[in-house]
C-alpha cells in the first residue's frame, strides 16, 4: 500500500473511528453471549459461570481490542493527537509568543488571501456561460501608438467572419448609454448592449421568455426590438408573462420587447438591455468607424493558439491590402475575460504583486521562526532529557512540528476570517464604484484556492517555524546539551541573521509608523456639523449626451436643463464644473521658480464658489471677462496649493503653468504650456479629504462640451426624492440627454475616502504586526542573551559590578541594534516624507518623527524590563554553584 493510500485509510478510519469502535464492541458482545448460551445449553452451567467461562475462552478482551485498534492504524493517530494536545498546552503556556506569532502570521495570511483571491478572480474569472473558456475576444492594436484599434473592427469584422476558420462564429457589440423610459417605472440611465444576434448564440444561453435577437433584426429598417434582463423584467414589469410586445423607449427610440434573458445573464459586460447592432461599414471611412468589440467561439478542435496564428496571417494580408489603416496593426486573440484586464503588462504586474506578498510572508514566517527558535533554545534541557530517555529524533521533531502547525493553523484561520470580511468590503466597493462598467463575472470573494493556498502556507510556515529549529535543536550532541543544562545555560546561539533581522524590523517599524500615525489622525478628522449639513444639501451629477451628437447641441441642452433646474422650487442654485468635488483629475503644475507639485485641476463656472459656499480669501473670484475667447489665462488656487508651491505666501499675482506629469522624453517637441496668472485664493475644499489636497480652479468656457458635472444646491437636506426629479427633468429636456452618478457631496466624499481608508487599515495592520514582532524579537533576544551569559553575570556581580554596569555590559549589543534600526528607519521616513510633500507624516515631521523615535525607545525599554530584572536577580552563588 502506498503512503497516500495508507494516509487515506487512516483519515477514513479517523472519521470512522466511532463506528469501528462500536462495531468491535458489538461483535465481541455477540460472541461472548453466543458462547455463554452454548455453554449453558451443552454443559448445563449457570448463566454467571457460563459467561465467566466464555470470557476466559475468548481471552483478554482489552488486549484483543487494542490489537484490533492497532490493526486499524488508530494507535499512530493516538500518538499524533497527543502531540497536538501538547502543542495546544504550549500555546497556552506561552501566551505572549502565541499572540505575537498568531497576529503576525494572521495579518500576513489575510493579505496573501485577499491578493490571491482578487488576482485569481481577475486573471481566471471565467465567463459564466456554457464552455465560457472557449469564448475569445479579437482585437486590433496599433503597434505605433500602443493603442487600441477598435475603430478598425467594424470593417475587419466581415474579413474575419470569412477567413477565420478557427473561430466558429463571430459576434460584436458596443455599449451605449440610454435613458430607459417606459410607462411602468421611473426613467433611469442604463448601459445598453448593441449586439449582433450571433452574440446570443455564442453565449449559448437560451431566453427565459420569448426569443433573443435574430440576424433579421440587424437589417436596416427592421423594427427596433429589445431583449431585457431578468432583473429589469421583475422590477419594471413585475415579471408578467405577457411581456413580449410591450414597448420600452431607449433614448429617443421606441423598442418592442421580444424576450427576457434568464437571471444572472449580463453578457457581454454587465448589461440588462440588448438591442441589435446595426452599423453599416459602408457608411464610414475605413479606420474611423464607431468602436466595437469583437468576440467569437473557438471552432471544435481549434485551440486559441491556432486562432492566434490565423489572426496573424490575416493581419499580414490586411496590412498589405490596406496599408493606410493596417500597416501598424496587430491582431490579438485573447480569452474573452482577459480583454477586460487589457494587457500582458497588467497580468505581469499582478504576478509581481503576488510575489512581493509572498516575500512579505516569508519575512514574517522567518521572523516567527526565530522567535520559536529562541523558545526552543530555552527548552534544550527538556529536549535533551527526552532524547536521553529514548525519544527518537523523529518523535521530538514531530512534536515541535505539531506545536508550530497548531500555531500556524490558528493564524491561517484568523487570517482567512479577516480576508473574508476584507473581500466583502472590497466587493461592495467595486460594485459601488464600477457599477455597470464592472464585468458581471468579476465578483471577488474568498476563493477555495486562496484558502488552500493559506493552508499550504500554514504548513510551510510550520516547517520553517517548527522543523528547522527542531532539527537544529536535536542535531546537537545530547551530552553537550545536558552539560549546558546543568550549567543553567543553553548551548544554542543566535547568529548574525538575528542581528540583521532585529535591525530590519526596527527599521521597517520606524519607517512605516509615521504613515500609520498620520493615517489615524486623518481618519479621526471630523467635519463640523455645519459642513456635514452643507455636504448633504449639495447634489452632484454628471451629464452625458451620445458621442455622435454635436457639441453645440449638447451645450444648448445643458443650458436648457440648468434653466429648468433653477425653476424648481427645491433648488437654491446650480453650478457647473468639469468634475465633482473630491474627484478632480491630477496634473502637475510648475511655478516660475521651477518648483513643481502634483495638484488637482478642475474647470468651474462663475457660480461654483457660491453654490459650495467657498469664500475667496485673497484676490478675486472669476469675472465675466475671464471666460471670453477660446483660452483663459487666469486661475484660482486653494490654500494647500499656496503652501506647497509658495511656502504659504500670498499667491495672488504669481504665475504657474501645467507641466508634464512624467519626465519629458528627450525627443519631445511639445511647446511648454502657456503661463497662467493666479488671481485669487480660496480655502481647502472639501475639508474632509484624507490629506489636504492642492487644487487649481480654471474658468469654464461656454464651449466646454465634455461631460460636465452639475452641482446643485438644495433647500432641504433630503436629497433622495430630488434625485428622481432630476432624472425626469433631464429626460423631459431631451430623451437622449443622460444624467448619471447622482450623489450628494457627502456620498462623494465617502466614496473618495473609502479606498484611502482601506489602504490605511492595511498599513496599520502591517505596522502593528511589525511592531509586535519586533518588540517580541527584542524581548527574545534580551532574554536569550541573559540566559546564555548567566554565569558571566554571576561572576561580574561577585566581583562587585553595579546594576548599571551589568546591564550595559550585557544589553549594549541589543541596544546598539535598536539604535541602528531607529536611525535608518527615521532617515527613510524623513526621505519618504520629503518626496511626497509631507504626506508621510501628515505634514508634521517635527512632531511625528521624534514621537516615533520615542515610541520605539519606549517599546524597547518595556520589553527590556523583564529580562533586565532577571539579570539583576541572578545570585553569584547560584550562578557559580554549577561549576
Amino acid at each position, binding site marked *: 500500500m502506498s503512503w497516500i493510500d495508507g494516509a487515506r485509510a487512516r483519515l477514513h478510519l479517523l472519521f470512522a473511528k466511532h463506528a469501528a469502535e462500536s462495531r468491535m464492541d458489538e461483535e465481541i458482545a*455477540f460472541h461472548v453471549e453466543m458462547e455463554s448460551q452454548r455453554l449453558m445449553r451443552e454443559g448445563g452451567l449457570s448463566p454467571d459461570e457460563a459467561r465467566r467461562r466464555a470470557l476466559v475462552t475468548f481471552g483478554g478482551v482489552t488486549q*484483543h481490542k487494542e490489537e484490533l485498534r492497532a490493526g486499524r492504524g488508530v494507535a499512530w493517530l493516538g500518538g499524533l493527537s497527543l502531540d497536538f494536545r501538547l502543542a495546544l498546552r504550549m500555546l497556552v503556556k506561552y501566551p505572549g509568543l502565541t499572540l505575537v506569532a498568531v497576529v503576525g502570521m494572521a495579518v500576513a495570511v489575510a493579505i496573501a488571501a485577499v491578493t490571491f483571491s482578487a488576482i485569481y478572480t481577475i486573471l481566471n474569472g471565467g465567463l459564466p456561460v456554457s464552455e465560457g473558456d472557449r469564448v475569445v475576444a479579437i482585437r486590433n492594436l496599433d503597434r505605433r501608438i500602443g493603442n487600441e484599434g477598435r475603430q478598425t473592427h467594424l470593417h475587419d469584422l466581415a474579413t474575419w467572419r470569412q477567413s477565420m476558420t478557427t473561430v466558429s462564429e463571430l459576434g460584436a457589440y458596443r455599449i451605449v448609454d440610454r435613458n430607459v423610459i417606459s410607462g411602468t417605472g421611473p426613467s433611469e440611465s442604463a448601459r445598453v448592449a448593441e449586439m449582433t444576434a450571433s452574440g446570443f448564440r455564442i453565449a449559448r444561453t437560451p431566453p427565459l421568455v420569448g426569443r433573443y435577437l435574430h440576424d433579421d433584426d440587424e437589417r436596416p429598417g427592421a423594427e427596433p426590438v429589445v431583449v431585457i434582463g431578468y432583473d429589469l423584467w421583475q422590477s419594471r414589469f413585475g415579471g408578467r408573462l405577457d411581456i413580449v410586445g410591450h414597448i420600452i423607449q431607449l433614448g429617443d427610440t421606441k423598442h418592442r420587447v421580444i424576450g427576457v434573458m434568464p437571471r444572472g445573464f449580463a453578457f457581454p459586460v454587465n448589461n440588462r438591455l440588448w438591442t441589435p447592432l446595426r452599423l453599416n461599414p459602408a457608411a464610414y471611412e475605413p479606420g474611423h468607424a464607431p468602436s466595437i468589440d469583437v468576440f467569437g467561439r473557438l471552432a471544435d478542435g481549434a485551440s486559441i493558439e491556432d486562432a492566434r496564428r490565423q489572426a496573424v496571417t490575416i493581419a499580414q494580408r490586411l496590412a498589405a491590402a490596406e496599408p493606410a489603416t493596417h500597416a501598424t496593426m496587430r491582431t490579438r486573440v485573447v480569452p474573452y475575460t482577459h480583454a477586460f484586464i487589457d494587457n500582458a503588462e497588467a497580468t505581469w504586474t499582478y504576478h509581481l504583486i503576488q510575489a512581493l506578498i509572498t516575500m512579505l510572508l516569508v519575512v514574517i514566517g522567518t521572523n516567527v521562526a526565530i522567535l520559536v527558535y529562541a523558545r526552543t533554545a530555552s527548552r534544550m534541557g527538556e529536549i535533551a532529557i527526552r532524547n536521553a530517555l529514548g525519544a527518537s529524533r523523529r518523535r521530538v521533531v514531530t512534536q515541535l512540528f505539531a506545536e508550530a502547525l497548531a500555531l500556524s493553523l490558528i493564524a491561517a484561520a484568523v487570517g482567512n476570517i479577516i480576508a473574508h470580511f476584507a473581500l466583502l468590503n472590497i466587493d461592495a466597493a467595486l460594485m459601488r464604484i464600477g457599477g455597470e462598467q464592472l464585468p458581471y463575472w468579476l465578483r471577488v470573494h474568498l476563493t477555495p484556492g486562496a484558502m488552500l493556498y493559506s493552508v499550504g502556507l500554514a504548513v510551510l510556515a510550520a516547517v520553517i517555524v517548527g522543523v528547522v529549529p527542531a532539527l537544529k535543536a536535536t542535531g546537537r550532541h545530547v551530552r553537550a546539551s545536558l552539560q549546558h543544562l546543568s550549567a543553567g545555560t543553553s548551548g544554542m546561539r543566535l547568529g548574525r541573521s538575528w542581528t540583521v533581522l532585529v535591525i530590519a524590523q526596527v527599521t521597517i517599524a520606524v519607517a512605516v509608523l509615521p504613515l500609520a500615525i498620520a493615517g489615524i489622525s486623518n481618519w479621526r478628522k471630523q467635519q463640523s456639523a455645519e459642513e456635514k449639513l452643507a455636504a448633504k444639501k449639495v447634489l452632484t451629477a454628471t451629464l452625458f449626451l451620445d458621442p455622435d451628437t454635436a457639441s453645440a447641441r449638447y451645450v444648448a441642452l445643458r443650458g436648457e436643463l440648468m434653466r429648468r433646474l433653477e425653476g424648481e422650487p427645491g433648488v437654491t442654485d446650480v453650478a457647473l464644473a468639469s468634475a465633482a468635488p473630491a474627484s478632480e483629475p491630477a496634473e502637475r503644475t510648475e511655478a516660475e521658480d521651477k518648483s513643481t507639485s502634483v495638484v488637482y485641476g478642475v474647470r468651474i463656472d462663475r457660480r461654483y464658489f457660491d453654490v459650495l459656499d467657498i469664500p475667496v480669501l485673497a484676490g478675486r473670484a472669476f469675472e465675466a471677462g475671464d471666460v471670453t475667447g477660446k483660452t483663459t489665462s487666469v486661475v484660482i488656487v486653494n490654500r494647500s496649493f499656496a503652501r506647497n508651491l509658495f511656502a504659504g505666501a500670498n499667491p495672488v499675482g504669481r504665475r504657474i503653468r501645467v507641466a508634464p506629469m512624467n519626465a519629458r522624453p528627450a525627443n519631445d517637441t511639445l511647446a511648454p504650456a502657456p503661463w497662467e496668472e493666479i488671481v485669487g485664493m480660496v480655502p481647502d475644499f472639501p475639508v474632509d479629504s484624507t490629506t489636504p489636497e492642492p487644487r487649481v480652479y480654471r474658468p469654464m468656457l461656454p464651449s466646454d462640451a465634455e461631460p460636465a458635472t452639475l452641482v446643485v444646491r438644495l433647500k432641504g437636506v433630503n436629497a433622495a426624492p430630488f434625485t428622481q426629479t432630476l432624472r425626469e427633468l433631464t429626460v423631459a429636456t431631451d430623451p437622449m440627454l443622460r444624467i448619471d452618478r447622482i450623489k450628494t457631496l457627502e456620498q462623494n466624499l465617502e466614496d473618495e475616502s473609502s479606498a484611502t481608508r482601506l489602504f490605511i487599515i492595511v498599513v496599520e495592520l502591517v505596522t502593528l504586526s511589525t511592531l509586535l514582532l519586533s518588540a517580541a524579537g527584542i524581548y527574545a533576544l534580551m532574554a536569550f542573551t541573559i540566559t546564555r551569559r548567566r554565569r558571566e553575570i554571576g561572576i561580574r556581580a561577585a566581583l562587585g559590578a553595579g546594576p548599571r554596569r551589568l546591564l550595559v555590559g550585557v544589553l549594549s549589543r541589543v541596544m546598539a541594534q535598536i539604535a541602528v534600526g531607529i536611525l535608518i528607519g527615521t532617515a527613510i521616513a524623513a526621505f519618504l516624507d520629503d518626496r511626497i510633500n509631507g504626506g508621510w507624516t501628515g505634514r508634521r515631521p517635527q512632531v511625528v518623527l521624534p514621537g516615533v523615535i520615542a515610541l520605539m525607545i519606549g517599546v524597547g525599554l518595556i520589553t527590556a524590563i523583564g529580562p533586565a530584572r532577571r539579570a539583576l536577580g541572578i545570585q553569584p552563588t547560584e550562578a557559580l554553584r554549577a561549576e
Partner: protein
Amino acid sequence: LTIRAQTDALRGSLDLIILKTLSLAPQHGWGISLRLQQTSKGVLEVNQGSLYPALQRLEKDGLITSEWGTTDNHRRARYYRITASGRRALGEELESWKRFAAGLDAVLRST
C-alpha cells in the same frame, strides 16, 4: 524455530482455516470459532478472541468482506464472506500447504 516464525506459522494457518471455513458459507465470528472446534475435534484450541484481529486483517487485504446480518434466532451479527481474491488465495495457500505437508512427510519418513 524462533518464536517469531512460530507466530507467523500459526497466524498463517489461522488465516487458512478461516478462508476454508468461509469458502463453504458466509459465517459470523462465533460461528467460525464453533466450526473450528467441531471440525478439529478440539485439537486446534485457539484463543477465540484472536480470531477477530485475523478477520480484520483479511478484510483489509480484501480476501473477505463483511456486513451486518441476522442470525436464525433474529440476533444482529456481523457476517463474513469470502471474496474472489480470497478464493484464489485459498487455492494457492492450500496448494503450498499440501506441498509443504508432503515435503515434511517425506522428510519425516526418511529418518
